[in-house]
């Protein structure tokens, strides 16, 4: 019986081969594109292999901050979206509803930084990327009795879960004390009273009992943030492989913590196949083989995004992986993001 990590390694070997072959691009072309866009040649090869053409790869690499919608999330615990929009517009901003969400606003123009609005200081909104808002929608935690945010960071999604379900405990985990201090500030500002945060590695989530909803917005290479200056840096294949190994361990632990009928949303701010579908596939197969229960991919319920990838570097996945949702800066005007929803039978 092969472990999830062993299965992942087999996939990573195939992926590395495809990247070494340049994803179908010539070495000179790879180097030129990488240099032009501040990327690593491996990245260019990954995108060409994933998206199927040089033009698409370049479209992805060429996306910049201005190509991504600037969005915020109205804190519906305190204000509804329309009222917030009116208040921001009265201060000179131009906003419109982010129609894929019930509380998002797209900010077309603003005379001042979003963080400087009094409405922000008073907790009427949270600044959140357009794709970053989607995993919690896919999780649909309304009605769940115990929810975990397994890699909570500064609490953007944990406080979003509180908006959906302010009456059930939201268990937020992170290994960074600094991030949890920021989570504390965010919970206070936004009025999220149902979060219990633990300074711990999510690989130990099993010690906290069973959950009926788990969000694993896993630590990743952050390649989906390439459009932003803060996220633009070269990422060799080795970095992707290291991230995927950690992701497999996190996902396996998180899935094991689901109670019967429970659901988990796995997401990353990366569009790499290796960090997403391959991780999910490796873990689901290993869990199935080990008799740990039956897990299956289900529809995310999101009304946009591309289907999950089922072919990459000679790897073929079952068609159910199309149920995952992929978001690309140059196609969807969002950060690069991948979201999969998994149910335990």
């Amino acid at each position, binding site marked *: 019986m092969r472990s999830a990590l062993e299965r992942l390694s087999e996939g990573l070997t195939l992926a590395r081969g495809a990247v070494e072959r340049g994803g179908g691009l010539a070495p000179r072309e790879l180097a030129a594109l990488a240099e032009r866009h501040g990327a690593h040649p491996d990245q260019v090869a990954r995108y060409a292999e994933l998206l199927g053409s040089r033009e698409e790869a370049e479209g992805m690499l060429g996306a910049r901050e201005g190509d991504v919608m600037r969005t915020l999330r109205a804190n519906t615990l305190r204000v509804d979206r329309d009222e917030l929009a009116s208040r921001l517009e009265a201060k000179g901003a131009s906003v419109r509803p982010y129609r894929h969400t019930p509380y998002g606003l797209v900010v077309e123009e603003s005379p001042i930084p979003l963080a*400087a609005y009094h409405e922000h*200081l008073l907790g009427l909104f949270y600044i959140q990327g357009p794709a970053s808002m989607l995993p919690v929608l896919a999780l649909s935690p309304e009605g769940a009795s115990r929810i975990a945010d397994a890699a909570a960071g500064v609490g953007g999604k944990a406080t979003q879960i509180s908006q959906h379900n302010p009456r059930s405990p*939201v268990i937020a985990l992170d290994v960074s004390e600094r991030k949890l201090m920021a989570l504390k500030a965010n919970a206070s500002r936004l009025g999220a009273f149902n979060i219990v945060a633990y300074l711990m590695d999510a690989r130990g989530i099993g010690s906290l009992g069973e959950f009926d909803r788990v969000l694993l917005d896993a630590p990743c290479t952050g390649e989906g943030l390439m459009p932003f200056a803060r996220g633009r840096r070269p990422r060799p294949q080795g970095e992707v492989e290291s991230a995927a190994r950690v992701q497999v361990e996190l996902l396996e632990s998180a899935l094991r913590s689901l109670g019967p009928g429970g659901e988990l949303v796995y997401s990353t701010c990366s569009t790499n196949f290796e960090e997403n579908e391959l991780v999910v596939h490796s873990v689901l197969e290993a869990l199935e083989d080990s008799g740990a229960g039956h897990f299956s991919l289900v529809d995310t319920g999101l009304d946009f995004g591309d289907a999950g990838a089922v072919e990459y570097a000679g790897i073929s996945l079952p068609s159910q992986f199309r149920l995952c949702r992929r978001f690309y800066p140059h196609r969807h005007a969002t950060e690069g993001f991948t979201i999969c929803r998994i149910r335990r039978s």
Partner: protein
Amino acid sequence: MPDKAVLRRCTREELDLIRSEVLCHSSGGLVGLDVLCAGAPGSGCVEVLAVHPSASAEALGGGRPPFLAGVHAARICGGRVEPLMGLLSALWGSIDRGYLIVDERAEAVFLYGRDVLPRGVIRRSPSPCGTYAVLNRRREPLGWARRRGRVYANLVDAGWYLRSGLRGRGRPLCLITAQDSANTASRARPIHAPT
């Protein structure tokens, strides 16, 4: 304050102190929230947390001490309650006494960490505790102030979130203190805060 304070139910004396501070500002009190404490009773300062009952059961019932539960609402030091921003979150929409309603200019200045001058006060409701919830015209809470001579001194305001709240200094749950304190807020660099 102890280095390793444990989250626990508050003592009756602590609850009485918190209740009297809350009742100075809201006749309805804290609705639908539990109050938990961290820190040894009677020694140093005790941290006060406002927590949804489902989360307080979780935080008290687990074997592992949490880093945070609910919202950090206040500190009790030397028998005196220091209200924090989290208490305003807990009282959102229910503050009906012990408040100042300030005009737009005073709102902007207060959120820079400055005091409220008498000319900025539109309406004042007396506070037997001496602390005032500072509200804008929409009655949204901006922070806490205490009368000092002619002015209302800024104890803590919502602007601290940007001025210092995300620097990541500080310590775990029971040791959450300085970031929310008035001193931190008043020392911090002002930000551009539009009205």
